[in-house]
């Protein structure tokens, strides 16, 4: 599913030395894995997720997604990949302001083929048990509900890969548990999930843990005693 080879990302800065966010990171993720990426802040987690999510291109190294080398893709080609294969979930939910839950869920369809299928969007909301809140604005929903809307939006185009950047970081335990339950469901359906987290309990749900420090991959291990959701 994911093959990264000596991936480096350097951010040039006008007023100081260049920042090496990633230094020659190499790893593979097979289809259907559930991977947690951990590390202190500034360790390169977000840079890695941006590249994996085709939002950004590596400075050096190669990235093969589902067999395709996307490291040199154009902006338009990357946009196409994001639209077809990747679902994003963010720490701060990122729902559009002054827009209903339903309209938020519909947005990815606009960029996939322009066919906005309301029934499909409602089904996705049903899936995260928010169908009755479809016409509520983001500001009228709780944090957990907003994140579930974001999940519905992430899965509307049926992506193979779900990337989550601290999806429970802004949520209390109950709401976070709900979100993790949905993510686990998506994984059980056969999707690949890569999530960044600081939370041990969340990381414990994953079957594999990658640890970054100063842009280098320092540890990559299978989590044998993967916990079930009930432990979260």
């Amino acid at each position: 599913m994911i093959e990264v080879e000596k991936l480096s990302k350097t951010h040039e800065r006008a007023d100081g030395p260049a920042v090496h966010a990633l230094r020659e990171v190499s790893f593979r993720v097979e289809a259907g894995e559930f991977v947690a990426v951990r590390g202190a802040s500034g360790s390169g987690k977000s840079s890695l997720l941006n590249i994996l999510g085709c939002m950004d291109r590596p400075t050096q190294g190669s990235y093969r997604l589902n067999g395709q080398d996307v490291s040199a893709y154009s902006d338009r080609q990357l946009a196409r990949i994001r639209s077809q294969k990747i679902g994003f979930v963010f720490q701060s939910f990122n729902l559009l302001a002054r827009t209903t839950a339903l309209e938020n869920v519909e947005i990815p369809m606009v960029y996939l083929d322009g066919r906005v299928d309301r029934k499909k969007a409602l089904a996705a909301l049903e899936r995260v048990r928010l169908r009755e809140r479809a016409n509520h604005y983001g500001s009228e929903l709780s944090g957990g509900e907003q994140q579930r809307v974001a999940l519905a939006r992430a899965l509307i185009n049926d992506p193979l890969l779900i990337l989550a950047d601290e999806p429970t970081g802004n949520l209390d335990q109950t709401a976070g548990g709900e979100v993790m339950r949905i993510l686990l469901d998506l994984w059980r359906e056969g999707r690949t999930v890569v999530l960044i987290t600081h939370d041990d309990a969340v990381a414990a749900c994953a079957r594999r843990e990658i640890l970054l420090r100063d842009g280098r991959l320092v540890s990559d291990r299978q989590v044998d005693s993967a916990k079930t959701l009930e432990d979260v």
Partner: protein
Amino acid sequence: MKLLAKARQAGRGVVRFRRRSLFMMAGSIVGIASLTVLDSIGENTRRETMARVKNMLGTFDTVIIRPGGGKTRGMVSLANVEPVLKFGDAAAIGSEVSEIRQVAQLQNAFDVDVTYRDRQTYPGVFGVSSNWLDLRGDRIERGRFFDADEERALARVAILGPDARNELFGAEDDPLGKSIRIGGVPFVIRGLLASRGAGPTGASLDNIVLIPVTTASRRLFNRDFLTMLIAQLKNPEQGEVAAGKITALLRQRHKLAPTALDDFTITNPRAVLARLTGVSSTLARILSGVAILAMLIGGVVIMSLMTIGVAERRREIGLRRSVGASRGDVLFQFLLEALLISVLGGAAGAGLALSVSMRSRHSKSFRWCSRETR
């Protein structure tokens, strides 16, 4: 299909931030409306000036000869001209300058009392030749003008302008055939002039009484010189040529030494008109400048609101990109939003300007333009 869906996102963007959209529209409404209104004021002023000049002169295919070498200012009259322009000069110009079709003569005064019974007024008393109507574009509303026979016979007949008629007769009394006294001399009213409205200075052109120039000269004023000649050109383009020939002829008739200055002034109305419309188009340009400034301010308002908007919506841009929008898609959306706002604002501004213009058409200052297109 895809384009339509993206366009709809832009439309929603406008509605979602409706307050900001309205402010931006206000910017373009103000800009467009002021541009349109000020520009139409400028254009109207220009037309109005032209109309008023035309109003005073009647026709443009003439040259005007006034006594006195200096540039005589204001309206001539027997009280303020040099006694150099004679009846013989008018006849000579008519017969010897081939570019001239005919010459009208004027001998006028403003200090003559005109009475009817117990009413008295001081209109401009204009002794004019019988071809006056042709050259000035005056129209007779009722009755008739005097003819060449009456002019020769020193007939005591008068034509009243609307203001003089109102002063003497009021609205109800019929002046035709009535006898009035001009400077104590009795005259019979033969005709009534249609209104001409205002001249270039805005003063009325209607407060006049016309009588035959011969009668004025011999029976009323006892003066043998004229206050103005109007020479009609056969070809309107030949004003300069005719003016040159008239100058030579008059200098010879007035026996001026080669070193002496002209004792008369020739004006070509086309040149005057060009100068006047030049002045009013300067005004129009200044107004346009102000309008463009207003437009620019409107533009800056839109620009700053849009810039703030993009900064605030950086998160939205990131989100849209993450769900599959390319940079081009984001650009398309924001440009289309801006386009929608400016087109809607522009249309509203144009509508506003139109309603302001329609309203001012009925107001006094604009009335001339519509009236003079007769």
